[in-house]
Every structure is written in C-alpha cells, then in structure tokens.
C-alpha cells in the first residue's frame, strides 16, 4: 500500500521507514488508521473569520448546528489549529496576515474556503482592495459555496474534509476538490495555487511581503519609541508620510 507522496505536504519519517520493511506494512496500516481516526475526528479550527461568513461560522459553532459534535473546537491561535477556515472577504491589507498565519500553522494542516468571498471574491472581486479568492494565496482543500453558506453547509464542508483526510491517509490519491470552474468564468489575473499558469516565484514573493510586514506595515509613526530609546519627536508634516518608514521601524 504505497503512500502516494504528491498530495501530502507532510511525512512521518519513522512510519515511512517502517513501511519500507516488507513485512511490517500491516502493522503500519493499523497505526495509519489510528492516526487517521484521531486526525479526522479532532479537527481543531483556526477561524480566519473576517466578515458576514464569520457570523454564520459563529452560528455553526453555536447551539442549533453544533460543529463540536464532530470534534471540531475553535482555537484562537494558529499553533493549535488543524483547519484554517477562511470565512469572509480577504482584503489586500489582510492578505499578508493570512499568509503569515497560514505559514505559522503546524503540519498537517488544511484550508477550508467558506463563502463565495473566500472562494472567488464574489462581486467584490474586481475592486481595488479585495483578493480574488483565497486560493491565490493559500492552497485550499475544501470550497464551501454560499453567501453566506448556512451552518449545515459548513458542517457538510467539514465532513467532506474528513473524507479527504481518510483518502489521503489510506494512500489513495484524492482527486483535488472540484474547484468551482465554469466555462465563461473570469479567472483572476493572479494564478491560483495549483494552477499551471501561476509562476512559482509568486508564493515566495507573497511570503516575503508577509514576513517583511513590519518594515512597511509598521504604522507606529507617532513619535514614541516604546523600547526605551528616546526618539526625537518627529514633526508629522504631511509630505513626509507617504511610504517612507522612520528609523524606529526599520531597526526594530
């Protein structure tokens, strides 16, 4: 039962070595099933809830459709998250943060795009400040369509993710989620993760912009330097503002 490597972004070094030993794959199979049972029934959600889908996400976590039934707990920190549920519109100012948080999540991790704003940017798609779909920034595993998708639909999306995890663990190659593709669909100019026409450099450029957030994103322009080093109070003339970051930001 060879484990197909192309879809998994993680590996168990010990288990894979065990598998190479001819006789042991039965034993490893049972460990795989145990791991698969553990992972899929305890999907901890890291909510990237930005707008209306976030409220529907809260309604899904609340009393009537309780996603806790499937073992999914909502955790506030990426360090403890398995699934990043992107619920709501991601804007140009928020995208580097999403990319940074996605990279701070430990493997194995999945991404669930909830709502048409996260899937394709919806009718905000061609506005100057909106990302045409989260899959231009982050590889998405499950798409939950709707504006907003009702809580049952989100729960079904999580179940589809569980099925995908079962398939991945059993080594079967799981078909990529049928990405919403229509014939006359306007494809975003930025290639989506997994598209052929997306230039490989784009992901690293996005990651650098996300990580170099502090330098240009550090809007702490006012004249206090909290690290105790007294800064001469800068005069906030209008001209000085556009884009150039003061000394406090660059050496922090």
């Amino acid at each position, binding site marked *: 039962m060879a484990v197909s490597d192309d879809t998994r972004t993680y590996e168990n070094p010990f288990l894979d070595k065990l598998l190479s030993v001819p006789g042991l794959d039965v034993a490893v199979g049972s460990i795989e099933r145990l791991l698969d049972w553990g992972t899929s029934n305890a999907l901890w959600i890291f*909510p*990237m*809830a*930005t*707008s*209306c889908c*976030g*409220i*529907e996400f*809260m*309604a899904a976590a*609340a*009393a*009537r459709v309780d996603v806790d039934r499937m073992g999914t707990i*909502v955790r*506030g920190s990426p360090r403890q998250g398995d699934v990043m549920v992107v619920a*709501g*519109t991601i*804007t140009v*100012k*928020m995208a580097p*943060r*999403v990319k940074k*948080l996605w990279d701070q999540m430990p493997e194995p991790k999945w991404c669930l795009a909830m709502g048409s704003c996260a899937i394709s940017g919806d*009718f*905000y798609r061609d*506005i*100057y*400040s*909106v990302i045409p779909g989260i899959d231009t920034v982050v590889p998405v595993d499950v798409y939950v369509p709707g*504006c*907003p998708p*009702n809580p049952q639909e989100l729960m079904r999306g999580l179940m589809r993710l569980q099925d995908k995890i079962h398939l991945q663990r059993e080594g079967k190659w799981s078909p990529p989620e049928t990405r919403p593709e229509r014939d006359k669909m306007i494809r975003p100019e930025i290639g989506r993760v997994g598209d052929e026409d997306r230039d490989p450099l784009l992901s690293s450029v996005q990651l650098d912009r996300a990580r170099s957030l502090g330098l240009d994103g550090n*809007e*702490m322009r*006012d*004249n*206090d*330097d*909290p*690290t*105790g080093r*007294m*800064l*001469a*109070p800068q005069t906030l003339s209008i001209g000085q503002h556009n884009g150039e970051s003061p000394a406090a930001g660059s050496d922090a």
Partner: protein
Amino acid sequence: MPLDAPEVPGMSGRALTPMFRPDPYLDLTDYEADADLMVLNLGPQHPSTHGVFRIKLVLDGEVIIKAVGYPGYLHRGVEKLCEKLTYSNITPIVDKNDYISPMINEQAVNMAFEAAAGIEVPRRGRWIRTLLAEIQRVASHLIAMGTFTLDIGGAIGGGASMFMWAFRDREMILDLFEDLSGCRFHYNTSCVGGQRHDITTGWEKRAVEVLSIIESRIPEYERFMSENPIFVARTRHIGVLSRDLALELGLGGPIGRASGVDVDLRRDAPYHCYDELDVRVPVMTAGDNEARFLVRVAEVKESIRLAKQLCEGVPEGPICGAKPNIGPATIKIKTGEVYVGVEGPRGELGHYLIAGGPGGKPTMPYRLKIRPPSLHALQCIPYLLPGNNLSDAIAILGSLDPVMGEVDR
C-alpha cells in the same frame, strides 16, 4: 506625567474618572515608566476583536498607557462599488456592510434614495419596515450580549453559556426572516419605494410567539449577568465614557445613551411609522461597560414591546410606492443631494447621497457616503483604554460592540 488614576471616593482606584481625559496622541518620549514599556498587538486576527480590527497597545507592566486603533482590514471599497451600480442593485451590497443588522441597513439606503427621488412609501410598506427593523434590533442586541459575555468569560470559562442562549434565540428570529425573504441574512427585502416581499398570513402570529418566548427569557439573562460578581467586577467603573466626550465623538446609539446622551432618531427624528408609536428610550449616565450592557438589554425589551404592538394592526394596502422595478435601471434620479439618518442598533446610520453629478448617469449615484456608527464607537478606544489593565481592553472592546464590515465599508 505618570498616568496614575486620581482617587475618587466610591470608584475603584484604577478606573479613570470621566473628568480625566487621556490624550490619544500621548508623547511617550518624556513618560517615565515603572519598568520598560512593551508594545502589544491586539491584532487583526483575534477572537475578541469582533472582526478584523487591530489595536496597538503600549503597556507599562499591565496597565495600558496608549492605544492606537487601526481599522481598514476589511475595506472592500463599497462606496466605489456603489458608484458603479444602479439604485436597485445597491441594496444587496449595503446588506453586507453591517452584517449583524442587514434589515436596517437596507431600509436606511433605500430611504435615502426615496428621499432623493421623492418617492412616497405606502403605509403598509412603512409599517412592515418598522416591524422588521425592531425585530432585527432584537437579533442584533442578542448577538451583542452573547459576544460580550464570551469576551469576558472566555469560551471555556463560563462565558459561552450566554453566547449559546443568545444564538439559540437569534435562530428563531432568523427562521422568521427566512420565511419572509428566503435567506438567513442578506435579505434584500426592501427596495426603492417600499418592500419587495410581503409578510404572509400568520407571519405576525409566529412573530409574536417568538418575541414572547424571548421576552420571557430576557429577565433571566439580565439576572445571569448583572448578579454575577465576576461580570460586575469586570464591567462596573471600567471604560467610563463621559457625556461630553460621547457627544464630541458623535456617539448616539446604546453607547451614547449609556453615557447620558439622550438621542434616539426613532423618537427625535421619527421615520417609517415611529411617529405613531410611543418609543421609550432607556438612558443611563454611568457610562461604563455595565451601563452599555444594561442599556442594550433594556432596548431589547423596548423593541419587543414595540414589535408586538406593531404586529397587531398591520394596515392593508400596497407595499411598494415605486413602479415594480423589473429592470435594474428603472429608478432614475436626475439631481439631488440628501442626508438621511436612521437609528441603527449601534447608533446613527446615515447615508449622504449625491445624485447626478458631472459625468454621472441618472440611474447611478454620483457619490454615496455611508456614515458608520461603529467607526465612532471605535474612536473612543484611545480615550477609554489608557489607565486600565490589558484584560479590561477586551471587556471595553466587547461592550462597544463594533461591526467591522460597517467600519471599513
């Protein structure tokens, strides 16, 4: 100039008195701290920032010295988009601004268009709009109560009970709206000239049932909160907002009324059918977190009373004044400039419309500015946070109940 709170009898020492007004642009270069200052980001992705809002806190130990708010993480360019859409297409866009009370957003923007085009909404249309607005206010305040206690108690620390109750009751209201318009929220029921969907027979009876169930539970929620010593310890005298600061910040709504600003557009500038109702407005003067919570709870009772009163005598007649707009481009406004303010659950929600400017088409607004009440709620963060502890920052932000879709538009 260390920021210790002057002692005032009867108030716990650490809360700043209303007279003391922290300077939001505090110059920290000459501030001598107990130890080093620490900068902490209550960042865009945080469970208790009610959406994506970032506060950069400068902390001296645990006491907040300075708080700088950074909105804009959900700026979707709605006003630019509205300049490209016809008047009847704008309603679903504006639904998504304040996604906790979409019904009131729709009505506000359509009232602005009707005022500019001079369309008269028939009585039944106005009556149904008032009824739907009051029920939506109940649902919106329920979310505010639920998330506020979730912020204070934490998901595991006992704060989730009120959250679960609030969402359970809100689901009943969403079922009502689903019967009316077909979707849970983003209803698109009101159009330029009145209502698009009429209420079905028996809808008011179900509405009265749902509202009376919620009305029977509200005293329990109120007791559950105001008699809980932890809740009281974390909300009384914390985040005290004085009346003149609230006025200057332009804070109507529950936040302003908790600080003594007695303004409610339903009573002071009546629209829809509010002039036929006696709108009682709860006002408190304490101005702290607890007052904001209690004003919201009292407003829920008021809204339920108004909605039940409205459910009895729904007048007969047409529900839409303008010609039923088949095509999107049937509403034409040659020129006009109008500002219409509506009492949203978070304050005054206004729309400033300029129709027919140079090079603009008569079927599309030339400029539509949406006045967001939550933006003014967030503006009092640099005044309320300094002097309190870090944990109070979460409680104060929760009591302001901002909605980031409306702030960033």
